[in-house]
């Protein structure tokens, strides 16, 4: 996988790393600006543009990274569940094909009106 494909596939983690790098750069610039001026009134804009903006970007980076982990885990779990549901559905269809219920079977005659379709256990019990 080349670099561009990696960036495309892992766009959220790439963005998180980018935000973290810019945040560290902003914090460093803020520190340099604050330390270079003795007046508090002149230091405060550096505190906001460097410090607060850096913290803000770090928050975005952390959110992106954690959300990427969560998305991966969630997607795998969901895929597993959907596969399991599809397998169960196929299993039910196979069971229904293997044991077709005769129209005048005793089980059907004994079933009260409106009882609904037979369950898996009912079908299995007939074999």
């Amino acid at each position, binding site marked *: 996988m080349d670099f561009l494909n990696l960036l495309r596939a892992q766009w959220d983690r790439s963005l998180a790393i980018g935000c973290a790098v810019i945040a560290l750069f902003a914090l460093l610039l803020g520190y340099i600006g604050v330390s270079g001026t003795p007046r*508090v*009134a002149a230091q*405060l*804009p550096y*505190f*906001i*543009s460097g410090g*607060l*903006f850096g*913290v*803000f970007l770090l*928050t*975005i980076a*952390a*959110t992106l990274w*954690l*959300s990427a982990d*969560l*998305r991966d*885990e*969630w*997607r*795998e*779990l*969901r*895929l*597993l*569940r*959907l*596969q*399991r*549901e*599809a397998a169960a559905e196929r299993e039910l269809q196979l069971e229904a094909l293997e044991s077709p219920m005769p129209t005048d079977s005793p089980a059907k005659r004994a079933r009260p009106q409106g009882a609904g379709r037979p369950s898996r256990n009912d079908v299995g019990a007939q074999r």
Partner: protein
Amino acid sequence: MTTHDLAPWAASAGLQRSPWSETEINRLIAILAVALVGIVAAWFGCSGATTWTPQMRWMVLGIGATTLGGAGGVGFVIAGLRATRAERRAVVLSLREIQQVSPYSDDPGTAAPGHELVTGNGMSHYHRSQCLLARDKDVVVLEPREIGASHLIACEVCEP
């Protein structure tokens, strides 16, 4: 398992791509945008003020905006955690339905043949050998004393 393994039936079932709804994503974007505007406004206002009192007001705005952005991120991650936990619970329940074989024989010291406790390289859990999460994987059989000595956790699906 990756999304490349996505079967056609899964694609046709409209496989959602993330644990967040569109509303949650839009809400996060809106919160971050408001926070960013607040920080820029605070910086702009603070730079233009020359006295302490108005600068403090702009500072409060900046700190508030940063806190808002952080809260938005935390809320987003919590929403994702809850969705992932719900999905995990659904998977565990689904797998438990088909896990009906008891792995133990009458003798408490030994497991029934074919139902030993196993683990694999890189795994943090130990499983029954028939567990779906361990089946068809490169695993080694564990002795009961090995489990006690290791830091392995019991699988939540097969509950060995």
